[in-house]
């Protein structure tokens, strides 16, 4: 596999050409991908809130936002502006420190997890050796923030919502981690880059979704539960709990929860695409297309096109999944809390264990197809 475009190297050599020392050039480079990814994630989350409005409107045969910008595209921006300028209220007898800290604890791990999301061979902030494991461990911090929010709000609905959120989050983390583990076993690596590379070669046929059909479903169900999406949005079930742990929140702190939940949804969709749908790989392999057209794969312009195609592909898959999640929200009724925990512990957990065992067996039996 050719390394493709290396933006870091070219940027650093560009700065060195301007007369900067190597280490200084690296320092200038360091914040760039981080700022880029924070900006990009914010935009992606905002787009998904717009998508939620539009798709839900379509599902209910309404038109949805229309007048703020073309097709209501400016609604998310107006939302942010409104929440930023609202008064920041601490309700009576809340615990001010914990109340202010909780949204941050939910928000920051989600954004940190974007470190490992690859958009191309070199289009990732860090290719960590522990890769996908970082996401699993960071996502386990969120329940603490939820419990903190529930406790600090001094409101019974909030406390119940926080407890439900934590229970749901720790129960569904286990099937999620086990289904990821099956993929990791097939790829022989935790690194997201290696996981995608292992799925390249035969285009859509080599994606993990065909080899891990059970894990594919388990991951999606568990990811929806982790994101507190509709069939599983018990922590904020509005008929029962007002808004769960978010009840007392407003203004910027509410915005952090809101942005965190949508960023988490985008993150789950992206990682789902990476784990099961070949990440940045196209359904028809690019190298095959190149040889068909008689173009050298190492030509600069071809690599630029391939890299942008990779980004488009990743985002396309992620937004397809997001669309699916939003459709699910407007078609499926909410489960009860006991049904939710039953599903997690008595159904998904055994199935994912069996899936892991079967993957291990198949890997031993057919090392060629299941990554020896």
């Amino acid at each position, binding site marked *: 596999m050719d390394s493709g475009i290396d933006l870091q190297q070219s940027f650093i050599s560009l700065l060195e050409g301007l007369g900067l020392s190597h280490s200084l050039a690296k320092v200038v480079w360091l914040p760039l991908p981080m700022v880029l990814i924070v900006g990009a994630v914010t935009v992606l989350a905002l787009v998904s809130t717009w998508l939620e409005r539009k798709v839900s409107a379509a599902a209910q045969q309404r038109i949805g936002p229309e007048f703020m910008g073309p097709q209501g595209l400016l609604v998310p921006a107006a939302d942010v502006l409104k929440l930023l300028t609202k008064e920041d209220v601490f309700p009576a007898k809340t615990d001010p420190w*914990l109340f202010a800290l909780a949204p941050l604890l939910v928000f920051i791990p989600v954004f940190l997890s974007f470190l490992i999301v690859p958009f191309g061979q070199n289009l990732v902030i860090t290719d960590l050796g522990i890769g996908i494991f970082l996401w699993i461990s960071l996502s386990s911090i969120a329940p603490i923030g939820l419990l903190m929010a529930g406790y600090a709000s001094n409101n019974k609905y909030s406390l119940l919502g926080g407890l439900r959120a934590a229970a749901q989050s720790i129960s569904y983390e286990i099937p999620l981690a086990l289904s990821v583990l099956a993929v990791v076993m097939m790829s022989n690596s935790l690194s997201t880059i290696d996981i995608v590379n292992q799925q390249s070669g035969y285009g859509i046929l080599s994606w993990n979704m065909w080899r891990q059909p059970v894990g594919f479903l388990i991951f999606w169900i568990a990811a929806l539960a982790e994101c507190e999406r509709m069939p599983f949005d018990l922590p904020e079930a509005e008929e029962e709990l007002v808004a769960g742990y978010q009840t007392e929140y407003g203004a910027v702190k509410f915005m952090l929860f809101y942005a965190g939940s949508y960023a988490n949804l985008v993150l789950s969709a992206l990682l789902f695409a990476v784990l099961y749908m070949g990440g940045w790989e196209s359904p028809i392999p690019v190298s095959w297309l190149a040889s068909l057209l008689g173009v050298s794969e190492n030509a600069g312009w071809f690599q630029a096109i391939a890299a942008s195609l990779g980004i488009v592909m990743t985002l396309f898959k992620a937004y397809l999944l997001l669309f699916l999640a939003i459709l699910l929200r407007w078609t499926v009724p909410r489960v009860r809390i006991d049904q939710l925990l039953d599903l997690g512990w008595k159904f998904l957990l055994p199935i994912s264990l069996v899936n892991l065992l079967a993957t291990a067996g198949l890997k031993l039996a057919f090392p060629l197809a299941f990554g020896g």
Partner: protein
Amino acid sequence: MNLAEGVQIVSFGILAFMMLASAIGVVLLNNIVYSAFLLGVVFVSISGLYILLNAAFVAAAQILIYVGAVNVLILFGIMLVNKRRDFARIPNAWLNQGVTALVCGGLFALLSSMIIATPWSISTAPIAGDAALVEIGKHFFTDFLLPFELASVLLLMALIGAIVIARREFFPEEGEDLSAESNLTLPERPRELTGGRR
């Protein structure tokens, strides 16, 4: 000293301060919920120290297990068993606290003198870095197989124990007098494991 070393020293300082300060907070704060949250900060700072030691996997496992599981369960326990009750002041409480502080201080002095006095055999092997994961796996299935399996048996025992305790499903009938019960027992009684109503 280049940039990387400077960053390392500064982050070590910050992490060590965070860890010590929050550990002291865990012990000294009166509100048990604050203590539990600060315990999370302690775990996160320890995981930061692991990252400084190039042990990324251990750091992530630390966060997953201690912050994501242990600390969440502690918080969960505190918030579910929220018995609002004023405890009677114990006379001469300072004596208890003084003795505890003395014992803890003595333990600390003993352990630190042991750490300083022991001639540790420091490994000269190159730092594994990202390959550490593979090394850990190999050790788990060769020379550390027995402790690894024993730990899993221990966890299994805890699991079964938790299920047995959680099967208490009796709730007191109306009018039944429970005021004679002490503060330390739950109103639930264990249910017979097989057959019958309650």
